């Protein structure tokens, strides 16, 4: 299967602009030189009963019914671009394609006297450029998936992660990219817990993997790397650790390795707690979160203390490379992974990946990426990087962040949050961004 670039739609952002119709006008203009919405191939329709707006637009389906219902071969799925192409000279205006489409993506234009559909403007969609709220975005990460598809997945199939697990995606993607010349350490946490370190006498990876103690991951990798260097072999010493294994129990060895600038690629998959052992709070658990050790009752309303910002702490070690990342922004992540991998040849590279957990955070398994995205778009989880000796640099600056509720409302662990707590969380988010901006020289 090939992945293709596509237009994504975020109804909650679309709602902010109150029927601005900028996308519709832009489409009508670029396709027909008219402002008349009838010529637009994208249609925003009001949501019913107060729901957010909805979208009638060609989804460029993978197994398109419109193409199958076309008797004239005017419609074809282009295997290179993924577009469903429409060829006017072949069309007989039978409208059978409109029977195939469940989303109003191909419609008859009575003035033009033929059907019309979105062609993604040759990869530069006018509607996306015109959208003032960012509700429409053109997703170009398909290339990454196609490229990664060519590489070998170095984890075995059948790992028993929860449905919708972000960590499994992170580790499979990361190790594919880092490649086979790797020794991997996975301290106790979800990642070995799902079987990656091994089960029934076999390992769960196709590279050497070991299961250090929570406390000594970074120091063991430091020693391994030194021995490989002594042998003259270029091997990546890589850790996939949870936030507990990195920032709480594992912190002294991590801090030491960062201070020594040992040649390690250390990836922290931060799901804000000890999720595999029953969702206990960690130092990374955010203020107000429900966990099994920060319950919600008549007195306690979730976690009383703020999360520590491990990525900033690591930055202050002045090691080779530190960055935050989110799986909702994979292009950003892959750029950082490339840089971190290169930096790990020189010294210590630390990647902090926000990893919302459907099981422990209480959201549907289909919503993982959406929670990731909202984390970034509310500035709860800002994306930045730092290279030794340089300034902090925002890689996906959010100029008009959504209110933090847009992120909190997605997860059950914040369901109880009251107005006072909400104001506190918003203030923490604002302060954190202010601090980061100071480091960025802004």
């Amino acid at each position, binding site marked *: 299967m090939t992945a293709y670039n596509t237009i994504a739609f975020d109804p909650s952002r679309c709602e902010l602009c109150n029927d601005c119709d900028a996308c519709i006008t832009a489409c009508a203009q670029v396709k027909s030189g008219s402002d008349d919405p009838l010529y637009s191939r994208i*249609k925003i*329709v*009001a*949501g*019913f*009963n107060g*729901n957010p707006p*909805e*979208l*009638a637009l060609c*989804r460029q389906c993978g*197994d398109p*019914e*419109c193409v*199958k*219902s076309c*008797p*004239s*071969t005017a419609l074809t799925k282009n295997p290179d671009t993924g577009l469903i192409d429409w060829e006017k000279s*072949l069309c*007989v*205006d*039978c*409208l*059978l394609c*409109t*029977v*195939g*489409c*469940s*989303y*109003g993506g191909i*419609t*008859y234009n*009575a003035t033009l*006297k033929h059907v019309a559909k979105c062609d993604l403007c040759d990869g530069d969609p006018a509607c996306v450029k015109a959208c003032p709220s960012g509700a429409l975005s053109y997703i170009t990460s398909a290339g990454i998936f196609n490229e990664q598809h060519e590489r070998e997945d170095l984890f075995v199939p059948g790992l028993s992660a929860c449905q919708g697990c972000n960590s499994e995606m992170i580790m499979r993607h990361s190790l594919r990219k880092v490649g086979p010349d790797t020794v991997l350490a996975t301290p106790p946490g979800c990642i070995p817990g799902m079987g990656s370190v091994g089960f029934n006498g076999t390992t769960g990876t196709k590279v050497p993997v070991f299961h250090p103690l929570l406390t000594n991951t970074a120091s063991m990798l430091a020693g391994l790397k030194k021995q490989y260097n002594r042998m003259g072999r270029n091997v990546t010493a890589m850790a996939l650790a949870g936030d507990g294994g990195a920032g709480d129990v594992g912190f002294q060895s991590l801090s030491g390795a960062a201070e020594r600038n040992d040649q390690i690629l250390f990836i922290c998959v931060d799901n804000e707690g000890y999720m595999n052992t029953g969702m206990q709070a960690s130092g990374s658990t955010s203020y107000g979160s429900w966990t099994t050790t920060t319950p919600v009752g008549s007195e306690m309303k979730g976690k009383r203390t703020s999360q520590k910002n491990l990525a900033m702490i690591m930055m202050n070690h002045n090691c080779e490379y530190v960055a935050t990342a989110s799986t909702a922004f994979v292009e950003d992540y892959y750029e950082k992974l490339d840089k971190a991998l290169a930096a790990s040849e020189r010294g210590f590279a630390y990647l902090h990946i926000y990893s919302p957990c459907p099981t422990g955070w209480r959201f549907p398994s289909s919503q993982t990426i959406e929670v990731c995205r909202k984390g970034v778009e509310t500035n709860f989880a800002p994306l930045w990087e730092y290279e030794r000796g340089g300034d902090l640099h925002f890689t996906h600056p959010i100029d008009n962040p959504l209110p933090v509720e847009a992120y909190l409302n997605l997860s059950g662990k914040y369901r109880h949050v009251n107005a006072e707590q909400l104001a506190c969380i918003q203030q923490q988010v604002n302060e954190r961004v202010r601090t980061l901006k100071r480091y960025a020289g802004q």
Partner: protein
Amino acid sequence: MNTTHYLVAGASHAGLEAVHRIRLVDETSPITLVTRDAHAPYSPTILPYVVSGQSAPERVVLRPADYFLQHNVTLISDNELVSIDETGKQVTLKSGDRWQYAKLLLATGADPIIPPIPGLSETPYHVLRTMQHAIDLRDHAGKVKRAVVLGAGLIGMHGAENLRHAGLDVTIVEMCDQVLPGYFDARAAAVIEHAFNANGIRMLMGSRVVRVEPLGDGCRITLENGDSLEADLLLVATGVKPQLDYLKGTSVQVDQGILVDRRMRTDAPHIWAAGDVAQAADFYGEEKVMMGILPDAVTQGAVAAMDMTEDHALKPYIGGVPINTYTFFGQQAISVGQSLADASLEELTRVDEDHGRYLKILLKENRLQGISSINQEMDAGIMWQLILRKVDLTPVKDAFIARPLETGRALMSSTWR
């Protein structure tokens, strides 16, 4: 003896969709596709446009030759099934070749019905079901002036309009009082009939032909009321029915077509049927029905293939819903689902005489049963889904009646994420 795993008879929409679906889950087992046509696969729906010259035969090929090579499909053209040995799991082709199969899909379509009109068999006439028919009709139409079309069903109407576009004087003779019965109600039919009249097509509705005889290079047609017509070209389009002689001696049960269950299985083991040849579940009632529409052939082909490959994603066939998107002389008549109200249905009609627009919504317990329109923007696919999914419109009923297009789009879009 040749051997194949999947044998698919018929290379139009149902057969081609089945091949596609089989290859999605079974990349290796041999597929053999037999078609009686010598031409590369095409859609019967395109044929009227070939007649008018709008579509060139070589440009409407549904699958290029290399598709079959790439997907390891053996295509046998200009050949057809003549008999099936269901216990030996073998078929005999017209050429005499015998093929051993593991699973057999019958998607052999339908053939024109030739009405028992005195004199017809001695008179030259056209039918329109194959590419060769269309090419013959096109070539003949290019040389003559007057055409008579028997039948105002889909093929007759499309054929007549395209003969008109090709420049002929055209007369339609139809036994019923309205055009396209079963697809459109009398009001919609009247609009369509009016457009045909206005574009110079003579419509002889409620007329029965009692005799046809050759006259020079053409023919003379005598009607029941004593009138007679002369034509250079006669197109017989009085319906289709499947040709099922090859089933003789099998346990495949037939009525008007091959009777199938909701997995497109026939009564014989290892034999499926789909498309115009099949008589399958009706969405609205208990009786099995002949659908004869393109999107339904695709659906049936998909269901059959998924059952043949034991694809776990198979959802049994929900049942046929009549659908018609009919364009005529630049106007559109669209009908999805039931077109005629009965006592159990709530009927809402909106007429805009000035713009020749018309909309009719049929609801049953606030669920869409049918919607038909003339010259109204309409997403037929969305309406089809609302019917098939039995979407409860109670919370949005007023909005749906006032703005079916936008409300339908919002409803279906909300199912996307």
